[in-house]
């Protein structure tokens, strides 16, 4: 087995037993990036060569006893909307093409405390708006399973990089499915934590009431380990929850006997591809054979939730992106006569088409005359969505749905039709609307060998339950032993 095939918990063992050094691991990834990045195009900023000297430094400090933590010297990739001091944070936008954050996001501080090594910043849809990473200003990331397909989005660079073995694990962000959907498209694991579990400080805001940072990993154990690192209260984010710190790896008991799983029938309707449905049915049977109690239920909010999501997310985005004015940082036009034209031309030239579309939609639903009909109404529907979920969680521990109605689609097939692109978020957005945790894990492939993802949704702060449920499935199904990305051209 090559170094890049190991999970992080396997690498941790090998570091502990001194079978490998941090330099060995980092070098293996740097070499892999040199070999495969030209096909995958996952990085906006690749600092893997600089990472090598960092790895040597960490090996030395470990030898002298200066560093003792067991994950020290393991590399990681970071989505490019998470601020990294001294390394560009572009949000895959012309607006922030040259932006170097003066400080670290809180999650980055936590990554650094563990002495993980940043291999670089990963591509995304501009300002995290999109589901295919095609809206990046810089490049289109390819799906490692088939290079003609999208990796999903908006954390497409993170998911493609983990899947292709360019990084052992990565951080993504999820506002409406941006961790789970690309994880599903790329055959890996992605977790959107409960709103408030992870600090948003230093993460470029898209929709502040929905955004969360989360792990994108090869398997569920790595996912729990990375969640251990990033979760926790932060004074700098008033929406972060002040709750007791947990060790999520302890929740992985590989036992789902008696676990009550609800299957919301509305998520298995017409719009869901038949191969996706069949694969999910098999997964449901597997859970039954593992001793879980599975029952069909109703959660009739998918369409409402999607419409509500686009109203609320765009409204919040139009306000959040107001800060980009070409004054203190970011793109400034060379074509202006006064302050107003400086603002307007900088924004018009600096933002891409999809970002402008969402700012316009958001401004529209917040403008006088439409505020009540759209924005206020959507906020009420948000209450309805939360109530419906709460009802389900009175009866069930976990809800099981597809992560996406389809497998990864062809590059270019949806990018010119925004509504069609939005509809592919139907299974994931309601989770953000309600602030719940959800994990996507691979549960099969279709006839073209493209991965299919299953989503497990839990009640607020029940990460342990969904991680254990995901782990039990993973240990029984063994997806990683059966299927691998082929870089098909």
């Amino acid at each position, binding site marked *: 087995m090559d170094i890049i095939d190991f999970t992080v918990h396997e690498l941790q063992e090998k570091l502990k037993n001194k079978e490998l050094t941090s330099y060995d691991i980092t070098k293996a990834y740097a070499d892999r990036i040199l070999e495969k990045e030209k096909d995958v195009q996952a990085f906006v900023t690749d600092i893997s060569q600089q990472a090598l000297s960092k790895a040597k430094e960490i090996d030395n400090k470990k030898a002298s006893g200066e560093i003792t933590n067991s994950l020290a010297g393991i590399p990681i990739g970071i989505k490019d909307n998470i601020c990294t001091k001294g390394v560009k944070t572009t949000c895959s936008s012309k607006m922030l093409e*040259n*932006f*170097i954050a*003066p400080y670290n996001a809180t999650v980055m501080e936590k990554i650094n405390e563990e002495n993980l090594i940043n291999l670089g910043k990963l591509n995304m849809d501009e300002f995290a708006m999109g589901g295919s990473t095609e809206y990046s200003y810089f490049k289109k990331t390819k799906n490692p399973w088939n290079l003609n397909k999208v990796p999903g989005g908006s954390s497409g660079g993170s998911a493609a990089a983990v899947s292709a073995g360019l990084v052992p694990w990565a951080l993504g962000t999820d506002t409406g499915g941006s961790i789970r959907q690309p994880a599903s498209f790329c055959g890996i694991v992605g977790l959107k934590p409960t*709103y*408030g579990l992870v600090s948003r400080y230093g993460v470029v805001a898209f929709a502040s*009431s929905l955004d969360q940072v989360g792990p994108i990993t090869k398997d569920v154990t790595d996912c729990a380990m990375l969640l251990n690192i990033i979760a926790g209260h932060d004074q700098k984010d*008033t*929406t972060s929850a002040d709750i007791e710190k947990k060790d999520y790896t302890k929740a992985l008991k590989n036992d789902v006997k008696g676990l009550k799983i609800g299957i919301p029938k509305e998520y298995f309707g017409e719009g869901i591809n038949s191969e996706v449905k069949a694969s999910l049915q098999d997964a449901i049977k597997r859970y039954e054979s593992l001793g879980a109690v599975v029952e069909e239920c109703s959660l009739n909010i998918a*369409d*409402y939730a999607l*419409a*509500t999501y*686009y*109203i609320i997310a765009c409204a919040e985005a*139009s306000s959040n992106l*107001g800060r980009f*004015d*070409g*004054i*203190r*940082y970011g*793109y*400034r036009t060379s074509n202006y006569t*006064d*302050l107003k034209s*400086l*603002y*307007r*031309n900088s924004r*018009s030239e600096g*933002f891409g088409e999809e970002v*402008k*579309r969402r*700012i*316009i*939609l958001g*401004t*529209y*639903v917040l*403008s006088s005359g*439409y505020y009540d*009909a*759209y924005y*206020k*109404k*959507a*906020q*009420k*529907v*948000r*209450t*309805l969505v*939360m109530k419906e979920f709460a009802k389900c969680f009175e009866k069930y521990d976990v809800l099981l749905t597809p992560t996406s109605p389809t497998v990864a689609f062809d590059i270019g097939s949806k990018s010119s039709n*925004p*509504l069609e692109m*939005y509809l592919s978020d139907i299974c994931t957005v309601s989770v953000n609307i*309600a*602030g*719940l945790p959800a994990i996507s894990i691979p549960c099969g492939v279709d006839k073209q060998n493209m991965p299919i993802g299953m989503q497990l949704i839990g009640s607020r702060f029940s990460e342990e339950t969904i991680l254990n449920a995901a782990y039990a499935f993973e240990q029984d199904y063994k997806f990683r032993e059966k299927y691998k990305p082929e870089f098909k051209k």
Partner: protein
Amino acid sequence: MAQVSKEELLHIAKLADLNLKEEETDKYLLHLQDILNFANIVSKADVENLDITVGANETKNVFRKDEVVAFEDTDSLLQNAPDKERNMFKIPKVIQ
């Protein structure tokens, strides 16, 4: 169902400090109308007696001590400035 006019779109764009080129206007109009037609489904939801939700957390005030923490790395802030003079951001004249 609201029909968005071209004038309205341009007004909204102006509020958002965005210029739309002539050739972009029709496309944005079409997409905006498409999305709003879909989003209109929220008007059918039965939310008569429901309050609004602003965020997923319970609504309460969060307090902390108001302590000053000085950020002294002015250089790293100013390195991102599109235009600067000495230790200041430079902008066009505001008062003519």
